[in-house]
């Protein structure tokens, strides 16, 4: 069981702590005697008039003289935090209660305000508030049973961020495929940076690594982590961030549960991979990050691609390009060949058509030519002067003329009347 480490007051750790001790009458008598001897306490004398202030002051000295700084267990009731920052509450058990105050500077360290009825263990000093004559317990350190306050703080923050949608899976951004630069937010001396560098050098040695070192535990660590994340966002040097630290206890990891860190991650313009603690540790930072990695090495593996695989991709791409171009050239060749065929076919068709037309004309001409007439059996009468005899009157009786036929001439005389 771990307890609050943040209290400023020194405190004893009761060994084999049983329940709270109730002073016996004997112890009380001893204490009063001691106080009298020290001159701290003046035993009230009968018949002497005391003032109220006097009584209260004396009672206060008595009480403070008797009780050393101590732990009290009980249930918290009516816890209020005033505007001043001071906290007022009561601690109770079955039979009694005691009024408590926790001053602002001590209350600052509380992970969250205790819930009503929560079982707590409080360290402080018993005193009297003189002005009101009130017996009270000034608490300097408060712990919940079984890390109760821490768990409560965590649960409250988780619910708050969830309600704002900051933990939604839909909000998680994809990581860049081939980042040029990765930013690392971690302790400069831890193993986290070392592990990340090893993985990056093995997988993607061309990648730049930029560290923004900070404390990763203790007072002020959360502010430093958040500031580093914001600085990366403002500078724009990195394409992806790895935020993390090595393993440790709940307190060691606590900075990554703080609201400031969660908000810085949620607001980061650059995708964030969280790598906090061991595989089983889950912090608020893990819930709002774009990716949660179980270890820093795993974070680096997720952040950078495998250089060898990329080299193989390049070879494949070259093959595809060359293959495609070769296919394209074949297509062109085929197209050209096709074109040639088409062209010769078209030319042939043209020639055939011309030939047909020529033939037709030749036939027509032939039909019109006189030679064709001779073929059909017509004869041409021609006079001895070469004149063609057409009309009946040209054929005077007894006239001699030539009759031209297909294969020659025949002498002919017109009959006498």
């Amino acid at each position: 069981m771990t307890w609050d480490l943040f209290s400023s007051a020194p405190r004893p750790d009761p060994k084999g702590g049983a329940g709270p001790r109730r002073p016996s009458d004997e112890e009380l008598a001893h204490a009063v005697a001691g106080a009298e001897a020290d001159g701290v306490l003046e035993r009230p004398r009968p018949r002497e008039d005391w003032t109220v202030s006097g009584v209260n002051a004396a009672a206060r000295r008595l009480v403070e003289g008797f009780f050393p700084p101590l732990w009290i267990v009980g249930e918290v009731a009516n816890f209020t935090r005033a505007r001043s920052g001071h906290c007022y509450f009561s601690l109770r058990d079955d039979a009694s209660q005691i009024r408590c105050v926790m001053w602002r500077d001590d209350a600052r360290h509380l992970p969250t305000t205790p819930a009503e009825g929560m079982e707590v263990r409080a360290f402080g000093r018993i005193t009297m508030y003189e002005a009101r004559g009130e017996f009270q317990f000034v608490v300097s350190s408060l712990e919940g049973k079984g890390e109760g306050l821490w768990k409560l703080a965590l649960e409250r923050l988780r619910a708050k961020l969830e309600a704002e949608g900051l933990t939604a899976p839909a909000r998680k951004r994809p990581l860049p495929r081939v980042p040029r630069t990765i930013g690392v937010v971690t302790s400069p001396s831890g193993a986290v940076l070392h592990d990340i560098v090893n993985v990056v050098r093995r997988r993607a040695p061309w990648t730049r690594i930029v560290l923004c070192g900070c404390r990763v535990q203790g007072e002020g660590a959360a502010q430093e982590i958040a500031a580093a994340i914001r600085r990366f966002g403002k500078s724009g040097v990195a394409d992806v961030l790895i935020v993390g630290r090595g393993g440790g206890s709940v307190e060691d990891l606590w900075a990554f549960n703080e609201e400031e860190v969660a908000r810085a991650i949620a607001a980061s313009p650059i995708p964030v991979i969280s790598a906090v603690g061991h595989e089983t540790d889950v912090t608020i930072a893990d819930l709002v990050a774009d990716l949660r990695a179980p270890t820093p090495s795993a974070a680096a593996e997720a952040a950078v691609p495998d250089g060898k695989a990329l080299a193989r991709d390049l070879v494949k791409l070259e093959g595809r390009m060359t293959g495609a171009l070769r296919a394209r050239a074949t297509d062109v060749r085929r197209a050209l060949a096709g074109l040639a065929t088409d062209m010769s076919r078209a030319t042939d068709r043209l020639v055939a058509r011309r030939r047909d037309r020529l033939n037709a004309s030749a036939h027509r001409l032939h039909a019109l030519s006189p030679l064709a007439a001779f073929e059909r059996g017509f004869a041409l009468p021609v006079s001895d002067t070469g004149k063609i005899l057409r009309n009946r009157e040209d054929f005077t009786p007894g006239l001699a003329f030539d009759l031209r036929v297909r294969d020659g001439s025949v002498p002919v005389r017109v009959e006498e009347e």
Partner: protein
Amino acid sequence: MEDPTLEQALDRLDEIAIRLEGGDLELADALALYEEGVRLLRVADTALGAVEERIQQLTPDGEGGRVEPLPE
């Protein structure tokens, strides 16, 4: 113009391969794309082969900080 980043080169190469495989390009366009692809392959190959030796750090300087080499 600045050389494309490795990621940009890979993305463009993928595009070029797909367009070349498409088969509906003019031969002149296909040749031009192929040439661009060859150039990008060279850029990518060089980028993949580079080795970044030094780790750098982001130090406070205004809001954005300054990048400088990390002392060993």
